[in-house]
């Protein structure tokens, strides 16, 4: 069990440390890293967290393990939730979303944290690559207290200067008042976590900035794989690796089948 964490496990642990007790954590399907992260945080330090999956609200802190579901649409995984009230009224209680934390991926992400799930190509009626569409990301990222961008690939095809289309507004065209000017109340994207590094957004310009490099990753590698000029701080720490405790709990009480270890 004392082996090194995989990159995905590292990413999950980075996210789990970001989550605060009392957060309402909504994770969509097909995002295994956040799925693990919220469960790990719930066990580690979140007895008052609420996990929101498939329109169900759960607090399962009393359980010894909180395994991932067998597959994405596993209806059994939320049988013993505390409430299904998010379903028929998913957008009727936006007022309480300041407590909510969300996670998004993207076909493209630009330097201000805008993301694109619509597609690639200049003609929106005939896209070169048709994406899966925006799901609920426009509304969720508009209102939640904060959200995290989580990418499976760190490449200049994904991290682009400008998205072909914007599904969810991050910091728009930049500036700490960018969201306010648009009339978008939520707290915006906080971090962007990739297989190479952790990034956040500068205070004034809200441009993406390197926070830490994952072990073994060089600055040049990040620069070469980022399609825009990343803000680079003077001192660049290495991402703090999972503790023995974190990794043990992650593997033995959450990711029982090693989705992040072998997947």
């Amino acid at each position, binding site marked *: 069990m004392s082996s090194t964490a995989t990159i995905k496990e590292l990413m999950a642990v980075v996210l789990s440390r970001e989550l605060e007790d009392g957060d309402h954590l909504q994770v969509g399907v097909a995002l295994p890293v956040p799925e693990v992260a919220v469960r790990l945080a719930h066990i580690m330090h979140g*007895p008052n967290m609420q996990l929101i999956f498939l329109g169900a609200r759960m607090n399962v*802190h009393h359980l010894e393990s909180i395994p991932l579901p067998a597959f994405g649409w596993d209806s059994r995984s939320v049988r013993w939730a*505390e409430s299904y009230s998010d379903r028929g009224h998913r*957008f009727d209680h936006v*007022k309480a979303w300041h407590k909510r934390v969300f996670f998004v991926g993207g076909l493209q992400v630009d330097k201000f944290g805008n993301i694109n799930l619509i597609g690639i190509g200049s003609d929106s009626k005939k896209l070169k690559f048709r994406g899966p569409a925006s799901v609920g990301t426009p509304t969720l990222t508009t209102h939640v207290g904060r959200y995290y961008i989580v990418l499976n690939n760190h490449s200049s095809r994904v991290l682009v200067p400008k998205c072909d289309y914007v599904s969810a507004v991050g910091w728009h065209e930049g500036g700490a008042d960018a969201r306010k000017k648009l009339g978008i*109340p939520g707290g915006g994207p906080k971090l962007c976590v990739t297989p190479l590094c952790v990034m956040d957004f500068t205070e004034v310009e809200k441009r993406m900035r390197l926070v830490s490099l994952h072990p073994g990753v060089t600055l040049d590698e990040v620069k070469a794989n980022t399609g825009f000029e990343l803000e680079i701080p003077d001192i660049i720490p290495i991402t703090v690796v999972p503790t023995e405790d974190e990794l043990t709990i992650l593997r033995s009480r959450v990711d029982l089948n090693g989705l992040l270890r072998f997947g």
Partner: protein
Amino acid sequence: MLNQVRRSAVLPEEKAGQWVKSGMTIAIGEPAPMGLLRWIIRNKITDLTVIGSGLALDYLIAGGCVRKVITYYAGSPDIAVMPAFRSEAENGTLEVWECEEGILTSGLEAAGKGLPFMPWRGGVGTSLPDINADLKVIRDPIGGEVLIAVPAINIDITLLHASISDSYGNVQHCRGTGWLDMFLYRAADRVIVQVEKIVSNEEIRSKPWETTISNADATVLMPYGAHPFYSRGYYIQDQGHIHDYLEAITTAYSDGNIDKKDDYLEKHCNQFQSHAEYLDAIGTGHLISLSEY
């Protein structure tokens, strides 16, 4: 692994009651959360803006707590117009934000959805936009139809009565909520729910589809807390008690002998230190006689 205990949302009535401050906007669900309302009257909270209807609303007005009402109905099957509401509205001492059910739910939905307004058709052609300057007649931006723009109605605290909750603010209503309860909950910054019974978390999780509110800020254990009103699955209305209220308050206002109102309030509300004392005065036998079956 610090802080490994899940917080309880259960509060004693005086702790929860103290959240309600004079001048706030509060809302009252159905069945009426009478235990909490009696706390408010007894503790002389004043200048409230109250979203409510019927007799529970009237009780708060009679209790001297209300400056403004947002209501769609201040009558009941027992009386055409509630006595305290009628008298204070006619005197001009009570402000009325004139609305109706669909306009009210639209404003509450806007608040819950984080929107500044919602459009609504009901009320077009009526006097409501003339009487209530907050209702704006608009043309819809797509087809140009005439509609009413209802501003968001935001609430500081909503007070509800429900059947059960667990320790963590997961609330379930026996046989569904009152028709407006969920709108009031979603439009409010905080919600306090008084319940007949507090149950285990396992009982809630055995039927999550019945959970109506999953994050009550506080729940207060108040068996028979809706008395003199009904609580679905528990007890029916106490018609005698309600008729006594209507007679006493109607008389007080129409005689111009407003002391009679204070006598009524003293006898039925203010003299008690707690909900339990109130129930003692009603008497166990009488309470049992109200059982719903």
